[in-house]
């Protein structure tokens, strides 16, 4: 059954839908909103830290606040949320009529707005808490519920009746909230936070490498090969086609 527009907007919030759609449709933007972005830096940073803690908890304050903690560093220590926000701000190139085509639109604040708006509907008490970000104030299960609303309920939104380009709102929401978890868990386990672009070397060993027990004993470098060769299955090094001609040119 399709969720009615009214029910959907009440659940997710008109702001969320409109903002997400707008962010993904830069043709509608008459101006950039850098000033608003700057004012919301703490709120945005906390939102992404709360997001990182959900997908890979550690012993940090955000994990403690959500009630799902783990020994040692997690995604917050790896700054996975910071790098996710940066990636979102690199995702949508600005249209030419808004300036240089080499600019990109600040999508991270829109996504953070979606998370915080939805968090306040899932549990209004999250508006008051340790952090400015309602999402970061949620308990672990409530954070999962935010994701369910954004990902599952949006499947039932029939936005096709909206005028273009809002007819695309469902697809934008599905795409954004579908792929974000994968990127958080990617950034948590790669070298991005300790990579020095000037030397193209690492300043320390990534948090995720130690957690995953990856390249143990290799420090901040990675090997050119491993002593992992076990031979050939059933000692077979070559096969032919079924007509016996696979090695015709050998």
């Amino acid at each position, binding site marked *: 059954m399709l969720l009615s527009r009214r029910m959907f907007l009440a659940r997710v919030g008109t702001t969320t839908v409109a903002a997400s759609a707008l962010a993904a449709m830069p*043709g509608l933007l008459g101006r950039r909103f850098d000033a608003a972005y700057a004012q919301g830096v703490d709120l945005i940073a906390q939102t992404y830290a709360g997001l990182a803690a*959900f*997908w*890979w908890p550690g012993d940090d304050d955000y994990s403690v606040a959500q009630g799902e903690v783990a020994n040692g560093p997690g995604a917050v220590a790896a700054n996975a949320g910071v790098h996710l926000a940066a*990636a979102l701000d*690199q*995702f*949508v*190139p600005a249209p*030419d*009529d808004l300036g240089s085509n*080499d600019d990109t639109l600040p999508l991270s604040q829109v996504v953070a707005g979606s998370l915080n708006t939805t968090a306040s509907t899932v549990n209004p008490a999250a508006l008051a808490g340790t952090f400015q970000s309602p999402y970061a104030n949620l308990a*672990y*299960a409530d954070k*999962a*519920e935010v*994701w*369910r609303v954004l*990902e*599952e309920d949006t499947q039932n939104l029939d936005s096709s009746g909206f005028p273009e380009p809002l007819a695309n709102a469902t*697809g*934008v929401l*599905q*795409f954004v*909230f*579908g*792929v*974000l*978890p*994968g*990127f958080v*868990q*990617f*950034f948590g*386990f*790669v*070298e991005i936070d300790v990579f020095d672009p000037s030397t*193209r070397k690492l300043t320390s060993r990534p948090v*995720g490498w130690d*957690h*995953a027990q*990856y390249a143990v004993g290799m420090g901040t470098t990675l090997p*050119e*090969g*491993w002593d*992992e*060769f*076990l*031979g050939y*299955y059933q000692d077979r*090094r*070559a*096969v*032919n*086609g*079924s007509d016996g*001609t*696979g090695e*015709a*040119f050998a």
Partner: protein
Amino acid sequence: MRDVIVMGAGGGGAVIAKELAERGLDVLVLEAGPRHADPEQEWRHFENEANNILTGYFRWGPADRTKPAWLRETPQNSMMWQLSGVGGTTQHYYGNSPRALPGTFMGYDGADKDAYDVDHVFPFAYEDLIPYYEWVEHTLPVQTAAMGTKEERFFRGADGMGLSVNTSKDVSGDSFRPQENAILQPGGNAGRTTDADKLVYPKATGCTFCGYCFQGCMQPLEAPRNLKAKRSTDNSYIPMALTADCWGRGGQAVQLLTDAFVTNLGTTTEGSDTVARTVTWRVGATGEEVTEEAQVVVMAGGCTETPRLWLNSGLPNDNDWVGRGYTDHFFDWVIGEFDEYTGSSKGVGSSARVDFPGRGGLENVGLPPGLQGFSNGFSDGGIAGFYDNLHPHAAAGADTHGRLAGNEFAAMASNVDNLLNVLVITDDDVEAQNRVTLSQAYPADEHGPIPKVTFRHRQRSARTHANREFLAGKAAELLRAAGAIRVHRIDWPPLILHVQSTMRMGLSADNSVCDESGETRAVKRLFIGDNSVLANGLGGPNPTLTTQAVATRTAEKIFQRYFDGDPWVVGGDPLSSIDGVVTKAVLETGRCAAGPPPKGGPGGSLGPGELPTTGATSLPLTVGVAALAAHEIIRVRTRTAQD
């Protein structure tokens, strides 16, 4: 006028370019992305540096990494994982080179003939393609994969399921086998040490088991470019194409231009035919537009960019099948946790597979930790233990369904070398609803309206869904038989990586773009040379080898039809890309390495901002020029030339 212009230096375009250059034709290859001339200096083993889709050196974007990546609209939970640059997405592939399933070809009469997508078969017989497979398998070359621990575990599981071993290159029943891979088998110290000093060519040859197949292949270090282990086209066909004048066979080296994004394909009229004539590209570094004429044009920009260029060029689309019929093998991902070592982060990305004819297949995939994390978080099945994203009862024999979060994820990710991943590769149907169009929501970029890639994955055919569920269940069964203590089905949304059939060849003109030769029905002298020309998803096998076999066949058709040449494959004598004469040419000419290349003429390799010295005409760049405007310019120019 050039003999042939090939647009795209990826898995298919490089093949056609090399084959026609070897026959002595004057071939220009245009590549939108970077050259990657010196991997040992340009690349690193770090995952984000390589594969951040927005900033990595392997991204769909310009060579200048300070500029943003090129955007595609994907209006659903999904991700396109492709890249620009010489080699194309063969930079990402694991060299897996299985042949297609015979049941996906015309005239197949096996007992299981009804198990396939019978409405969209190849317009020729499987047996007709065998000589072209053999030609490519020798040229790359394709070899039986070596085994590491993760393969040993996978084979243990497949054997435990009661499956038989396939000892042929062809598939005729449910079975497992080592992959046939376009990866050189390890020699010398390769695979036997982590000591970097011992892993330098020629102390080591072939695959060193480094585990970074998804990040391009530069192993062994110091090896000539054509002797790197993985046979991505930057290491195989492109070195041959650039040295085709050196082997004593009457060849002519291709000219390769990188940072050259094709924005328009112009046509003229010959009798009652519309005929391809001009190619216009934009030089990324300067913004300048350049146009050349050619007798034959080959589109090889991939399943998304080829239909985009067609539509942006205003070419005919009377049956509305340009861009339709996108197949992607509707992947899924199943992770097994073990209480023993699997070596998942080491060795070739995938060296073992199971084939289920009429259903698809499974293959093992080893990953470094970042991609392992991504492969868990990328899901259409909700969060395990919380919600299923309206996909109920989908565990398919696994312990969990959907992404892992919180401590469950932390536990799974706590030892990457105790995991075994199985990729589900579905035999998916060609469906008109899955398609490439031009985006209406996003503004055009500097190359024209951007592509919109739509996959209605929840509404795919019953056969496609049934195949996927069957295979996900088999993956869980295999992992348990291999010894997994816990199994997780992630339930991926479309990961648009194996891509096929958006400009498909077919038996019927009603639902295809190309005839059996790969020439487009609507525009003569225009051929499709990439995965998009494949008639279907091959029944599940990885597409690159079949694309390359079809591309070889297409090159023959071009040579016969438009250059009065003779076919060369049947009864011919292919030269391997690792043959000593190729190595000698690569080393002596320096055309495949960094540093000053020969400029301008054949064998040259021009980079950002450089223009060819022959044949090209510069056009003034109009600010904000759109493809349609460029299209009009070209049409005017073409008419003027004829007048």
